[in-house]
C-alpha cells in the first residue's frame, strides 16, 4: 500500500504590490476550501530562518511554488534551501495570458480581484490533483 503525500503550496506573499496578495489569497483558498485535506504550506521566510525541518519541506512534500512576479523568489528560495519545486506558477505571467489587470490595491480586494483569486486557486487545485495522481 502506498500513501499519497500531501502537496505543499508555498506562496511568495510579496508585500510590494497586489500580486503578492493575490498569490497569498489563491494559496489560502486551496488550503482552506478547494483541497484542504490534501495540501500543506509553510511561511516562505522560514526557509531561511528555519532549520532542518523547514529545509526538508519540499523533500517531504512535492511542492508547488506560487510566485507573484517574474522575480520568482519562492521558486529560487525553495530550490536553494530545500529542493526544486515539482510545479509552479508565475501569477504575473498568468494574468497576462488571461488578459486581465493585476489587483490595484494590495490590502483590499474588489469583486473582480476575488474572481481572479478564485480562478487562480482553481488552477492550483488542478495542479495539486495532477501531482497526487502521479503518485
Amino acid at each position: 500500500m502506498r500513501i499519497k503525500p500531501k502537496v505543499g503550496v508555498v506562496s511568495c506573499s510579496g508585500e510590494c504590490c497586489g500580486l503578492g496578495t493575490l498569490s497569498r489569497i489563491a494559496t489560502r483558498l486551496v488550503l482552506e476550501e478547494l483541497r484542504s485535506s490534501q495540501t500543506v504550506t509553510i511561511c516562505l521566510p522560514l526557509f531561511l530562518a528555519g532549520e532542518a525541518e523547514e529545509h526538508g519541506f519540499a523533500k517531504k512534500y512535492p511542492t508547488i511554488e506560487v510566485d507573484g512576479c517574474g522575480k520568482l523568489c519562492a521558486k529560487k528560495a525553495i530550490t536553494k534551501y530545500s529542493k526544486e519545486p515539482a510545479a509552479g506558477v508565475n501569477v504575473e505571467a498568468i494574468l497576462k495570458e488571461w488578459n486581465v489587470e493585476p489587483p490595484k490595491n494590495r490590502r483590499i480586494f474588489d469583486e473582480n480581484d476575488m474572481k481572479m483569486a478564485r480562478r487562480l486557486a482553481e488552477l492550483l487545485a488542478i495542479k495539486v490533483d495532477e501531482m497526487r495522481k502521479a503518485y
Partner: protein
Amino acid sequence: MILKKSVLVIPCSGIGKPFGSIARDATFCVCDELRSGKADTLCLFLLVMSDEEARHKVASSKCITIDGCPLACSRNNIERSGGKVAAEFRVMDLLRENRDLKPRTVTFLDEDGEKLSKMLAEKIAAKVDELWEESD
C-alpha cells in the same frame, strides 16, 4: 529642501496562522493610509534572496519589523541582511495585552483580527512619527 527617507515597515506575512495576516494588514494600513509618504514597505523575501536594491534600501533606512510569531522571521531576516532594526512589534505581545480577542481566520481577517490590526497599525504609525522626527 532636504527630503527625508521613508521609514521601512516590514511584516513577516506568515501564512499559516492569523498572526501573519494581522502583521501584513497593519503594515499596509500604515504605508497606504495612516502614514502614506512617511512609511514604506518591501518584499521581505526579495531581501532574503539577497536582492541588491532591497538590501541597499534596508541598509540605508530605519526599519520597523512586524512579526506574527516568536520565530521572528522579519527581525531575523532584516538582521541577517545587514539591516538595523529601529523598532519591532510582535502580534503575540498585542494578543497578550488583549486576551479577549481571538482571531481565527487567515485569508481574510475576522472581526477580532481587524481590531488587532487596527490597534497594531496605530502603534506602528506612532513609532513611524517618532523615527521620522529623529531623521535629519
